[in-house]
């Protein structure tokens, strides 16, 4: 009887221990299963962080799915959306005030050099969690890296593409343009036959008319700034600007109103059926060229890489990394959020789940070449991947935003007022050099 008791006790103890061990093992397994390098055990449970981002469908997608992150980590995230136009002012006000809020800041790569002292370098955290910038295209990775240190995770980024009316090119038996001369020839035919031109944009508003010209410049072998010297007024730059202005004033291939148009109005012009071509960021495809307010069907629009000026095209790319505010009281929790929000799975779901919103933007190489992503977006991302493979970014200078505006003014001056391109670029270059020389 006593033996039976002992045996029963042993069995019970074994069972109990086994159960405890199983629960512990299961719990550990659960914790270790947290994806994207998120820390197990909810060490930041109850922490509340804020995320400053521009208004865009992509971020709405993040906001909608953020409950999943909170469930895994216990960290609550409050999204603060501001229009892109006022984002820089908002960030600068945070910087001047030394605010700890927002904890995570989304910024344009061109602003990075001037903002980097308010951001936490992320290299150590990335190394610890096995995150590499290799998952992004070089241009997007470079946009988040200053002086060899990474300050943000690329979260929003664009490829430039040429969008064209596929149906009209097919109707007139025209090939898709590969070079700028091809574009001029094809656009001239379409404009003559259909009355629809290229939706170019030369308005200096927010310095955006430089986005197309810089492709011409780089493709023509020119540079913006080299070894601390402003060189965009080189013969290559002048030739590129003359050609860019000729699209409007000599070749007459643009849709009327180009001198005052900005990119938003240009893509809308294609969407409204008033223009046959648009060169710009791919996000325009989802909401302005083909959106609920436009008249075109998907099979009417084609897309390809930006035209090449010579035999090789070089395309401009930009990105919007997200970094951690150096004044944040919850940097570790903010890093957990950054790991989650920049993960490729979330990005993929954002661009293929189209029921609530049409998100285009993706940055991971794996997603841009992914079959599901391309099927859901008619191959747009594969075209984007090709464009990004040869993309470059603007020079990483603190004063770049103002230099960009100087060039934009020069472009507008040449196109609208007939100013000599050499004279306009020389004037801009002299002012830009002063900005570059400022210590």
């Amino acid at each position, binding site marked *: 009887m006593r033996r039976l008791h002992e045996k029963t006790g042993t069995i019970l103890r074994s069972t109990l221990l086994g159960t405890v061990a199983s629960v512990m093992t299961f719990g550990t397994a659960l914790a270790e299963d947290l994806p994207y390098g998120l820390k197990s055990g909810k060490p930041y449970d109850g922490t509340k962080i804020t995320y400053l981002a521009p208004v865009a469908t992509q971020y709405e997608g993040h906001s909608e799915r953020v409950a999943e992150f909170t469930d895994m980590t216990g960290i609550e995230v409050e999204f603060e959306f501001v229009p892109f136009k006022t984002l*820089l*002012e908002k960030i*600068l006000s945070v*910087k*001047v005030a*030394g605010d700890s809020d927002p904890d995570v800041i989304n910024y344009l790569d061109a602003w990075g*050099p*001037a*903002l980097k*002292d308010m951001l936490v370098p992320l290299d150590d955290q990335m190394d610890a969690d096995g995150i590499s910038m290799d998952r992004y295209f070089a241009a997007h990775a470079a946009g988040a890296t200053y002086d060899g240190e990474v300050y943000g995770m690329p979260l929003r980024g664009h490829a430039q593409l040429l969008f064209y009316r596929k149906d009209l090119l097919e109707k007139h038996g025209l090939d898709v343009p590969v070079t700028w001369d091809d574009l001029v020839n094809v656009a001239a035919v379409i404009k003559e036959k259909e009355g629809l031109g290229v939706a170019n944009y*030369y*308005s*200096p*508003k*927010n310095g955006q008319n430089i986005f197309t010209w810089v492709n011409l410049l780089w493709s023509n072998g020119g540079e913006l700034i080299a070894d601390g010297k402003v060189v965009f007024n080189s013969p290559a730059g002048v030739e590129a600007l003359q050609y860019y202005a000729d699209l409007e004033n000599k070749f007459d291939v643009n*849709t*009327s*109103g*180009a*001198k*005052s*148009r*900005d990119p938003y*109005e240009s893509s809308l*012009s294609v969407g*409204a059926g*008033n223009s046959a071509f648009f060169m710009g960021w791919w996000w325009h495809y989802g909401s302005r060229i083909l959106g609920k307010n436009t008249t075109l069907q998907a099979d009417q629009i084609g897309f390809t890489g930006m035209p090449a000026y010579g035999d090789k095209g070089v395309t401009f790319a930009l990105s919007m990394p997200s970094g951690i505010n150096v004044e944040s009281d919850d940097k570790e929790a903010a890093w957990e959020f950054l790991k989650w929000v920049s993960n490729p799975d979330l990005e993929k779901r954002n661009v293929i789940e189209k029921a609530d919103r049409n998100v285009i933007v993706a940055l991971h190489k794996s997603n841009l070449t992914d079959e599901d992503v391309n099927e859901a977006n008619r191959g747009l991302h594969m075209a984007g991947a090709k464009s990004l493979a040869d993309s470059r970014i603007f020079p990483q200078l*603190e*004063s770049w*935003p*103002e230099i960009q*505006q100087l060039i934009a*003014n*020069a472009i*507008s*001056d040449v*196109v*609208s*007022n007939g*100013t000599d391109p050499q004279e*306009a670029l020389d*004037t801009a270059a002299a*002012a830009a050099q002063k*900005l570059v020389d*400022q210590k």
Partner: protein
Amino acid sequence: MTDRSFKYMFIAPAFLLVSATVLYPLLYAIWTSFHEWRLSKSRAPTDFVWFENYARAFFDDPAFLQSVGVTFTFIIGSVVSAILVALLIALLLSRQGKIYTVTRTIIVLPFAMSPALQGTSFRFFLNQEFGVFDRLIGFIFPFAAEIDWLGDSTWAMIWLILTDTWHWAPFLSLMLIGGLLSIPRDTIEAASVDGASAWMRFWTVVLPQLLPVLAIACVLKTIFSFKMFEYVYLLTGGGPGTSTATLTYYAYRQGFHAYDMGYASAIAFVLAILLIGVSVVYFRLLFPKEKEV
């Protein structure tokens, strides 16, 4: 508590509020203008640089001088345009009656609208593809159908002025209506009895008596024209080229694009000095001191 301290107690809240929202920022801006302050490098002003920022503006920055020229062009155009339109509206509506009262109420609406909304709306109105103004003008004047209103330097400035006039004229007209209604009727009737034509009555009787109100309206409009920013930012982006880049827009760019707050503050303060100077000149011209007999 004495009467003296009692009255100070009453104005103290207002004084504190004005000090916090106007005086402190103004004094801080002056202080900043004498300092080096690059937002990209520092959260606060750094070195004291005396008048370096001011010297740079006048002797080493052609873009600044150009923006001064653009600002004065805009001021002259917008003040003349707004005052003339306001005077015309005032002359039409300075009568008693329900219909006039209702009309006077309705025309204030443009002034009540946000400048940001107006700037965006006018940009859309003038769009060559979708704009209602563009279509309307093209219909009435076919020769103007191909004009890119905001893509031509002269037209861009004209539309900047007209947009501003649309905003300000109703408010100014209310001021002038008040002035017109306060003119003694017997002076106008006496001129009529003497056989003065309508134009003579306006020129020799009404206008001189309206001059004090007109002066205030001009000063007010000049001050606001000096500060023009919203329409430049939203309508033209300072372009084409820099043909509509006013001083405030230029100061904004220096502060928030070039991150040079010291220089931006100096430009802003130059603007304030110009504003004070112009206001003084206005009053001296319009209200000369009476000579002692």
